[in-house]
């Protein structure tokens, strides 16, 4: 019940702050791009668009959301409420994934992608990974400039190998790199159980670390940094 409320209110905040409007405009722009390129390129370009924007949006927007909350001392309010860190994280992750999935579905359908469920599953998994990364960074920083600086190395290790992997120009062993597994799924390609297992391991690690970071953020609202 509390989680449902957190998700719905997070979506409401996102509407108020114009996330939905922004993604409406971006989706139209991406559709124009897809319609302007040759048909043989569409699937790969759609995969890159989905992976680098709706799937990775959490990386960028989590910084804005958490910084905004910090500036309004909202972490203090959460720290003395019955909400636990897991519910707080889940509310943000799920609400952002909803936008990511809708945009990904529109782009995949427009590009005539082969396997929509795979693409959506890949988008959801990538979305959770990038949102958790965004949250981990956002809990540690105090300004937007710091956030932008911190996201650069993540963009390099998150996007470059995945895009190279899409065009099969990476060593075979890198297909086990969880980010590349995500790109495979976004592109509608089948993945092995081992690839999925390694991706799940990364997800679990990020979730545990994000929970620790949120608790630390709430505790530092109590005036102490452990």
């Amino acid at each position, binding site marked *: 019940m509390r989680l449902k409320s957190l998700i719905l209110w997070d979506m409401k905040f996102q509407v108020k702050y114009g996330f939905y409007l922004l993604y409406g405009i971006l989706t139209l722009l991406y559709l124009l791009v897809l319609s302007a390129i040759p048909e043989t390129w569409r699937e790969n370009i759609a995969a890159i668009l989905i992976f680098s924007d709706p799937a990775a949006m959490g990386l960028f927007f989590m910084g804005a959301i958490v910084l905004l909350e910090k500036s309004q001392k909202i972490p203090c309010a959460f720290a003395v*409420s019955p909400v636990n860190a897991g519910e707080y994280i889940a509310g943000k992750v799920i609400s952002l994934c909803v936008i990511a999935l809708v945009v990904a579905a529109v782009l995949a359908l427009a590009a005539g992608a082969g396997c929509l469920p795979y693409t959506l599953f890949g988008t959801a998994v990538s979305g959770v990974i990038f949102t958790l990364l965004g949250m981990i960074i956002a809990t540690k920083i105090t300004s937007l400039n710091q956030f932008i600086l911190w996201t650069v190395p993540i963009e390099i290790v998150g996007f470059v190998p995945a895009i190279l992997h899409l065009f099969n120009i990476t060593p075979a062993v890198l297909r086990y790199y969880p980010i590349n597994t995500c790109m495979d799924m976004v592109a509608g390609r089948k993945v092995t159980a081992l690839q999925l297992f390694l991706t799940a391991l990364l997800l679990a690690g990020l979730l545990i670390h994000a929970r620790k970071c949120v608790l630390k953020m709430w505790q530092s609202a109590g005036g102490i940094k452990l």
Partner: protein
Amino acid sequence: MITVQNLSFSYSKNPFISNMNFSVGKGEIFGFLGPSGAGKSTLQKILIGMLPTYEGSAVVNGTECRGRANRFYEDIGVDFEFSTMYEKLTARENLQFFSSLYDKRPRPAEELLHMVGLENDADKRVGDYSKGMKARLNFIKALLHDPTLLCLDEPTSGLDPTNSRIMKDMILAEKARGKTILLTTHNMQDATELCDRVAFIVNGKICALDSPHNLIMSRGAAKVSYSWLDHGEHTASCALDSLSRDEKLKSLIAENKLQSIHSSEPTLNDIFMDITGRTLL
């Protein structure tokens, strides 16, 4: 309601709070008084479970604070010194959001808004509120889930006299509803007016703990000052407990020549300075 035994806490190697012992009964308004940096906000944060790395024991509502679960907050309302609201949301939306985080059935937002005179501004964004309005809204946010313990951090800080009066009346109204209230303040007048008992805190230690009345009375009797006209105005004073031995006063009364007469008890501020040797700044 609250039992604190041998409580110590440190932000670094040096102790910040050392060896505190006190208890707070149900329905009591208990004040932590002290200058900035004395440790009163830290103490309150320990009691609301935000600082679990303390030594000794701090039991609130039957729960040791360091081992509290999230349910602990179903029965505690915290009003910080600053606003903790989403500024882009309206007051009503903020109250709806925060009440949705509790399992308990919330108090009607409309009733709370009416209580603090914000019913006509309920659909205004909190970002557009004045400081006094934000303070009142923050206060009713702490009441939403009808907690049995209220923790208020400098509730009248920065408020004009009218808003300060409104805030104090609301605190007394909650006490009348049976709530236990922890009040952190460096405003001695508020403490005298509101608190059943106060603890003077300086350098992380409790220097005195009693009711404001007892603390005031424990430091000598009140004085009586009087004045009369005799080729110009003259004044004199004597202790209240030796009034009958003041011959000058007796003669002025007999001759109906008193110009003015009033008693003046020491204030809690005087007592604080007397006991701790510190001012409250």
